C-alpha cells in the first residue's frame, strides 16, 4: 500500500507565483487534511474534507484553496505565493477516529 502520497517533495516559488500541492490516498479514507509545520513549531490545520465534494476551513486558510472531487485526491492550491507561506506541508487522511496517516511532506520555500 502506498498510503498517502504527496508531490512534489521540494519546491521553490517566487513571490506572486501559484502552485498546487498534490495529495493522493489509496486507503478509501473519507477524511483528509492539510497541515503546515513551520520550523520548530507544531502543526496548524489549513483545510480539511469529510468526503468528496465537501471541504472546510481550518485554523490558517488564508492564501490557500482546496478541492475534493474524488475520495482519493485532495490538492492544495497556493495563489500569489508569499514568504509567509514558506513551510513544510503535510497531507493526512483518516477513516474516522482511529488517527491519521500522514504523507511525507512538501517543503516549500517562497523567495
Amino acid at each position, binding site marked *: 500500500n502506498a498510503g498517502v502520497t504527496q508531490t512534489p517533495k521540494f519546491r521553490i516559488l517566487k513571490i506572486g507565483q501559484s502552485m498546487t500541492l498534490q495529495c493522493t490516498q489509496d486507503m478509501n479514507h473519507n*477524511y483528509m*487534511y492539510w497541515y503546515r509545520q513551520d520550523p520548530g*513549531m*507544531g*502543526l496548524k*490545520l489549513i483545510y*480539511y474534507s*469529510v468526503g468528496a465534494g465537501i471541504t*472546510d476551513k*481550518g485554523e490558517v486558510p488564508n492564501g490557500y484553496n482546496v478541492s475534493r472531487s474524488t475520495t482519493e485526491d485532495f490538492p492544495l492550491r497556493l495563489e500569489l505565493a508569499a514568504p509567509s507561506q514558506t513551510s513544510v506541508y*503535510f497531507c*493526512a487522511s*483518516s477513516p*474516522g*477516529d*482511529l*488517527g*491519521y*496517516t*500522514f*504523507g*511525507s*511532506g512538501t517543503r516549500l520555500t517562497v523567495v
Partner: protein
Amino acid sequence: AQSVAQPEDQVNVAEGNPLTVKCTYSVSGNPYLFWYVQYPNRGLQFLLKYITGDNLVKGSYGFEAEFNKSQTSFHLKKPSALVSDSALYFCAVRDMESSASKIIFGSGTRLSIRP
C-alpha cells in the same frame, strides 16, 4: 476550549535509561488520545492511541503510554531508551467538538538520546 499541552520543549536522556515525555489534555467527554513521532525530514508516524480500555497502551518501537483520567495526562514512556529514539514527539487529542474527526496536536517535544 479543547487543548493538549506538552510542557517540555526538549527531553534529554542517556541511552539505556527510561524515558518519559509528558502530555496533558483538556477535552469535553472521554478523550481519544494519540502519540506521533517525526524523524528528521520525514512525515509524522503513528505510535499509539488510547480510545478506551486499559490505561496502559502499548505501541510501536517499544513505546507505551499511560492514560490517567484524574490527572488528565497521557505520558509517553519507554523502559530503555535507544539513540535511534531521538526525534520530535507529538501528543494529540481528538477534537470532540468536531464531526470531522479532527485532531488537535501539541507543540511537540524534542527527545534527544545521548550514547
